[in-house]
């Protein structure tokens, strides 16, 4: 049995059913997701010299045949083909199947996308009045919480954590990710009115994976209006005001490169492409830096401040204007 999906603007065919509606697009799949056995993975990863990610959360290896091996100990493992066209998966434990889907469509897919010449960005994005606002930030900087506070105000989520921007006819289109958001339970309760729903991302994290309906998720692309780079909690004083500054194109280019979703693939051709695509984005889309105290009660004020910065008069209605 194969299931068909369209996610990040990519045609994906999968042996595992994903937790959102199938969409059968025209044409061949751009990525095939295939289940495999323990034996297959032990053979494929036999010579793998595993490198821990800086987060120590997973390990990876680039194999001699250009395939990429990824392993979350006790959870699951993935193998990505050299051309990014196939991803094999294997569960290593009894953890949530939803967790496997999240990492499949996140980290594992990011390797496939980069191998196909695409450049995923570490960002969550919402749709405001028909255009996408993208929040850039490292893990734990509050991208998803900020997205949630915009959803509370009637915007729809476009993507959570990974953003792909396509360039066509001089426009930058932000592509929709899976219809789900990963947030802490207090964010789910306070801004999404979701109590006791969703499944835990994994046994080491309190974060919940929460599916979003059509009223809270946009499944078609949106023109990209602005990036906001979130300052880290340690760089911000709890006493300070909310500050937004527009970055120069030089600063914008550096931030866009710094926030690549996949920093593991660094061959010459890939780095040239990352530079070139980031430069194009920096020259076409405003990039701003936002600093704010990490007080949960402040989040609605931060939303208002962003709306004021955009000159939208404090309204956050998500009109259905499409791309």
């Amino acid at each position, binding site marked *: 049995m194969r299931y068909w999906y369209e996610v990040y603007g990519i045609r994906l065919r999968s042996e595992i059913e994903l937790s959102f509606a199938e969409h059968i697009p025209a044409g061949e799949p751009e990525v095939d997701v295939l289940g495999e056995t323990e034996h297959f993975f032990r053979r494929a990863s036999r010579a793998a010299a595993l490198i821990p990610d800086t987060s120590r959360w997973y390990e990876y290896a680039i194999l001699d045949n250009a395939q990429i091996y990824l392993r979350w100990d006790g959870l699951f493992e993935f193998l990505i083909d050299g051309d990014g066209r196939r991803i094999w998966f294997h569960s290593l434990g009894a953890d949530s199947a939803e967790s496997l889907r999240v990492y499949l469509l996140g980290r594992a897919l990011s390797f496939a996308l980069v191998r196909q010449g695409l450049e995923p960005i570490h960002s969550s994005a919402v749709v405001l009045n028909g255009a996408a606002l993208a929040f850039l930030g490292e893990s734990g900087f509050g991208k998803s919480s900020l997205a949630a506070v915009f959803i509370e105000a009637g915007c729809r989520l476009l993507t959570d954590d990974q953003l792909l921007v396509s360039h066509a006819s001089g426009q930058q289109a932000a592509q929709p990710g899976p219809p789900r958001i990963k947030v802490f339970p207090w964010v789910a309760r306070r801004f999404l009115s979701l109590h006791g729903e969703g499944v835990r991302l994994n046994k080491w994290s309190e974060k919940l994976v929460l599916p979003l309906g059509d009223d809270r998720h946009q499944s078609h692309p949106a023109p990209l209006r602005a990036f906001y780079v979130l300052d880290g909690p340690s760089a911000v004083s709890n006493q300070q005001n909310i500050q937004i500054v527009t970055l*120069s*194109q*030089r*600063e914008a*280019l*550096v931030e866009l*490169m*710094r926030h690549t979703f996949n*920093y593991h693939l*660094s061959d*010459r051709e890939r*780095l*040239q492409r*990352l*530079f*070139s695509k980031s*430069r194009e984005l*920096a*020259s076409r889309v405003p990039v701003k830096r936002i600093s704010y105290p990490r007080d949960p009660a402040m989040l609605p004020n931060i939303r208002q401040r962003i709306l004021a910065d955009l000159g939208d008069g404090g309204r956050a209605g998500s009109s259905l204007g499409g791309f």
Partner: protein
Amino acid sequence: MAVRFDIGSRIVVSKDQVSSELGGEAVILSLINGVYYGLDPVGARIWQLVQEPVTLEQIRDVLRAEYNVEAAELRVDIRELLEQLAEHGLIENAE
């Protein structure tokens, strides 16, 4: 390894980088290690000058003509920047 240039050293950009000038500033990305650098307008001007082989003395003379800075101070600043760029493989001796 520390790289040292003297006043007559001929310097040129390495092939192992890509760069872009943006609004009078510049960004350089090393294709060897993925490290990126942002240069302010003066740094960007120096980067422009080293696109072709040039000596530290020639760079100093161009900048002295364009900026109102003491020659000795300028020489130290240029040398520091060039040595940093060289340490990361972004420029090299032209010889």
